[in-house]
């Protein structure tokens, strides 16, 4: 899929995350997380997995994570992508 407009999903509550996606020429992932030191590698792997599955090859993906588990990351990113995709 292609990101054609801004999309957002999530909250800033503990154990959740906020995902924002917007159109860009290449794929850029920016991770802010309260547990970046310990989990950046796993968060990035999960984001890349979902992006690949959805066929996203370009876009600016920003997450502000408050210690969300993998399933929350997956769900929030999918929701943000759906909101950012063209009809």
């Amino acid at each position, binding site marked *: 899929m292609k990101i054609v407009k801004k999309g957002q999903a999530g909250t800033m509550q*503990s*154990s959740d995350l906020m995902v924002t996606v917007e159109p860009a020429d290449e794929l850029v992932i920016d991770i802010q997380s*309260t*547990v970046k*030191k*310990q*989990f950046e*590698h*796993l968060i990035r792997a999960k984001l890349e997995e979902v992006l690949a599955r959805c066929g996203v090859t370009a876009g600016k993906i920003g997450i502000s994570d*408050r*210690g*969300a*588990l*993998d399933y929350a990351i997956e769900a929030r990113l999918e929701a943000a992508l759906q909101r950012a995709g063209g009809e």
Partner: protein
Amino acid sequence: MARNSLGREIPETFAGKKLVPYSDPWSVQPHAERSTRQIRRIAHNGSKLVGGLREAIIASGLKSGMTISTHHSLRNGDRLLNELVREIDALGIRDIKIASSSVHVVHSELVPYIRKGVITGLECGVNGLIGELISKGELDCPIIVRSHGGRARSLITGEVPVDVAFLAAPCCDEYGNFNGFFGPSACGSLGYALVDAQHAHKVVAVTDNLVPFPAVPVSIPQSVVDFVATMPSLGDPKKIVSSTTRITTDPIGLQIAKHAATVIEASGYVKDGFSFQTGTGGISLAVAEHVRNMMRRDKVKGSFGCGGITGYFVDMLEEGLFEALFDVQCFDLKAVQSIGRNQRHMEMTAGTYANPFNCGAVVNRLDCAILSATEIDVNFNVNVNTESMGYLLHNTGGHCDVAAGAKVSIVVCPSIRGRLPMIRDEVTTITTPGETVGVIVTERGIAVNDNLPELKEELIRRKAPVKDIRQLRDEIQAVTGVPRPVEFEDKVVGLIEYRDGSIIDVVRKVRE
């Protein structure tokens, strides 16, 4: 470097002090006389009122290189320590060590004075920014974290000689009698200050509420107080007592509390003579509520409640569920009001509460105690000092004292906090040795230490979710993933002293 019995590398010395590596909770024996101070005789009609803080500092003879103390019963509402250090700086005094009973977030104001060399050492644990900056290497100030019992021990043995104690005195007369029960800055028990009043070389009572002689009831008597000083306000009453101590509504917390209550019931101690301690956390209070219902149901007449006292314990005392409360520190307004009113709500010194080096601390008489944790390892060792980023953010409190004393010490902890698994192969910092921890309770199950085989059997018989601690660790990590360890440099910035004075762990500078 030597390794202590828990495998932690301990340097030979720290800040000029020779260190004894921790070996076990029981075997260290004291080889000291009780610390002494000069006996004095004051002029027959002399006045002790010296004016404000500055005059009190001058009168006390405080000089560069000395050690001061305050008590932390005003907690995060305390104004005295910040104001005191400002005045010490203004007088040009430098190289002061702080040996207070605790330092709180509000004392982050001390940071510039540490940078300036006014404060050059902390003989006490800290909560908040100061510890974080020290952990990052941004602030250079050796820090020795002690438990409540360990701090009392260090003053009583003279290991930490306090030159001048500046003791916040919420209700004080001009001749130095004081208590914490009344006044705008009432904090209730003066359990920590009672130790300083007996052992500091000079004692200054600092009050914002000078009452006509005598200030009764007398907690700290005129005979040990050198000077009386006044300041406009000792503290912010809203922050002195936390009005937000209430039972958790979080479903995970409630599940943990239910499991913990099952453990207490299975321990068989809930019968006449039962003794109990909890903290102020929402989970602890939920456990207390279960215990109260159990005691009512079985018509149990308990012996005592102990520790930092909350309104929940006051209610249980007044309902007749306990014979007495032993109170080192009041945690809410209801406890403050009760200690001034209830004869069986006893003010207790930190030494009597938890010092391992005396003829028996109150913690030794505890049946069950609820403790918290920021991390637990598979050997039941508990960390309450450092948080997930490796920063020193919390003081020990009575954690290791109570764990060692209670027959069944129960550590309650959610299995995951913000993706971080709370049961791991190794904790960042060992505060309390696993040997003294009885049971770990999470919402996912209960792990019982091998030293309580009968309790484990009884819990299994009651079909409680008993799991091996390694099984719990694996279940949790299957959900969170395996975190990368926080990295540290070699530089030791602080010590975690066990209650007996041996070094159970060190805090190293975090690699950023």
